[in-house]
């Protein structure tokens, strides 16, 4: 009975547990794993079932546009459905398994950028990153990497503005190993007597007590018309970076004391072109013939690296975080490119050969009040929930930081006689050529000061005593790293906090 179909419960059932986890994605599953056998009852309320159902997936439908100065707007209505997964396991079902911690610079206050800085440091997060790595069965960042570098795959030494930032893949990914991922999500539930998963249980409203400081109960709705309620001592909202905002806004704007709920939405996108209209590719050429397998052609089994800007580099260039990801170019080299790069290589390093790599760039999107999730009250889904409007806005500063970072990398490679960079994309073509990842960050941002965020350093909504938010919507800055590892690290940290709050003995 660990998995219960809420559609089959008697009408107006009351679900009770010490800890209510709203959403059955990776964040809340990671928390639930910490509570197995903890002597307190846990209920996971999941909108979907055990597999993709398009009727349920369509509950995500809304409207969206992406904007950037000087660029034509881009419609992203489909992105709202295609960038998330609404069944047990959440977006972990379609996750590729790439694990990356945020850099030290991502947590730092960077005065040249504004609205940066987390209320926790990378050093404070390190134990939770380690536990997240253990949970995902991967080596520990960065300890294992630093202690066991592979001499056969040396990093490219550019200068102190750039470093080799490692990435690792876990096999615990729905996209890569379905059976193993399902076992990871399900087996502990079967073994734990204190955890129940309610499937097809959509939370449509969060009710507060009259004091306005405690959640009293949740309204739960099923697509077959059944209505239930849920009560707990503490609640964790972990329905994804867009749905977290949707539910809080639809519940009367819980957490919107600072007018920041839904604002500062940030995503990750890759910038690069491959055989554009002029036949040009984004490329990075290495002059000295160095083995670049650390960066390209590593496969999933090996740690691989991207070229990333250090905190010092960001300060020097006045930029945000930035990476270049390399891969082996498949297109035949153009004779003119070959000649130009041969000349460059000769001028860089006598006798060496130029080695061309395809690449794409990523540049941190900075918090921006205009980049925002709001509700469309006149458009509701079959459960009566207002649909969302995502106005994903890149600022002039975001475009500046991208272009300045590429220029800085090109200059650093040239000054160090290491190579050249090609970036053949005009600023006004950026939106049309970028590829968006499925990372929805920042719209319930974390802050110590209630005036500057939605949740506090413990992921608790400012001003409330028992409502918490899990997932990357709490990220105050987005970095470049794929967010899942940090989501799980934060979930570990939140779980410890909740155990203290609810009196779970260590």
């Amino acid at each position, binding site marked *: 009975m660990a998995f219960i179909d809420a559609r089959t419960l008697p009408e107006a059932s009351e679900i009770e547990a010490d800890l209510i986890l709203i959403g059955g994605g990776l964040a809340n599953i990671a928390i639930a794993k910490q509570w197995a056998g903890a002597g307190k009852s846990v209920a996971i309320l999941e909108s979907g079932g055990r597999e993709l159902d398009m009727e349920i997936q369509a509950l995500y439908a809304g409207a969206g546009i992406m904007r950037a100065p000087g660029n034509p707007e881009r419609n992203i209505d489909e992105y709202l459905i295609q960038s998330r997964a609404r069944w047990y396991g959440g977006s972990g079902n379609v996750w590729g398994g790439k694990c990356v911690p945020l850099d030290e610079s991502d947590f730092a206050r960077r005065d040249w950028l504004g609205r940066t800085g987390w209320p926790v440091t990378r050093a404070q997060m390190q134990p939770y990153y380690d536990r997240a790595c253990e949970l995902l069965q991967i080596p520990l960042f960065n300890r294992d990497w630093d202690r066991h570098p592979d001499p056969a795959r040396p990093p490219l030494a550019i200068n102190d503005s750039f470093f080799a930032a490692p990435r690792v893949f876990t096999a615990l990914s729905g996209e890569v190993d379905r059976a193993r991922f399902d076992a990871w999500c399900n087996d502990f539930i079967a073994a734990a007597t204190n955890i129940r998963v309610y499937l097809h249980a959509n939370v449509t409203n969060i009710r507060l007590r009259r004091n306005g400081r405690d959640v009293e109960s949740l309204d739960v709705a099923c697509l077959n018309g059944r209505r239930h309620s849920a009560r707990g001592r503490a609640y964790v909202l972990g329905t994804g970076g867009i749905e977290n905002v949707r539910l809080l806004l639809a519940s009367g704007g819980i957490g919107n004391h600072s007018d920041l709920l839904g604002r500062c939405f940030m995503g990750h996108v890759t910038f690069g072109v491959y055989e554009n209209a*002029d036949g*040009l590719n*984004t490329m990075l050429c290495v002059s000295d*013939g160095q083995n670049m397998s650390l960066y390209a052609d590593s496969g999933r089994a090996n740690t691989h690296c991207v070229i990333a800007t250090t905190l010092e580099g960001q300060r020097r260039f006045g930029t945000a975080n930035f990476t270049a990801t390399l891969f082996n170019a498949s297109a035949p080299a153009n*004779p*003119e*490119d*070959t*000649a*130009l790069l*041969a*000349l*460059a*290589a*000769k*001028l*860089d390093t*006598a*006798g*060496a*050969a*130029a080695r061309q790599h395809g690449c794409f760039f990523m540049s941190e999107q900075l918090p921006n009040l205009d980049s925002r999730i709001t509700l469309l009250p006149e458009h509701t889904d079959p459960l009566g929930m207002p649909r969302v409007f995502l106005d994903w806005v890149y600022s002039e500063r975001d475009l500046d930081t991208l272009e300045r970072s*590429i*220029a800085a990398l*090109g*200059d*650093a*490679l*040239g*000054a*160090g*006689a290491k190579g*050249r*960079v*090609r*970036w*053949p*994309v005009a600023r006004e073509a950026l939106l049309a050529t970028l590829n968006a990842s499925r990372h929805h960050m920042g719209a319930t941002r974390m802050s110590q000061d209630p005036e500057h965020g939605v949740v506090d350093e413990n992921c608790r909504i400012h001003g409330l005593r028992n409502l918490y938010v899990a997932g990357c919507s709490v990220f105050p800055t987005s970095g470049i790293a794929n967010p899942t590892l940090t989501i799980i690290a934060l979930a570990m940290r939140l779980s410890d906090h909740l155990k203290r709050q609810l009196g779970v003995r260590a």
Partner: protein
Amino acid sequence: MILTKRNLLAAFAALAASPAFAQTNGALDLTATEGLGRAYRTANPNADLAPLRAALAGGLDHGLEAVRARVRADFRASRVFTYRGWRLSETEAQLCALLA
């Protein structure tokens, strides 16, 4: 030594003759760099190429080392010329302009 186009071509030919280069890239096709040279001249019709000529006029070995140093200094100072997306040093572009 006075730098002529023929001398410059000879310098590049010498570069291209290095064994490692020959193994990996074949001969350096200097005609393929003419597009860059023309683009630089078009964008910089009043560019003063005399300093580069002078740097190369000191003899082949000495001249090329001087050019290499200029290239690195260009990048340190962000003196660059962008051609078909490639971020190149001004010196590289001027070299090709001398040939174009």
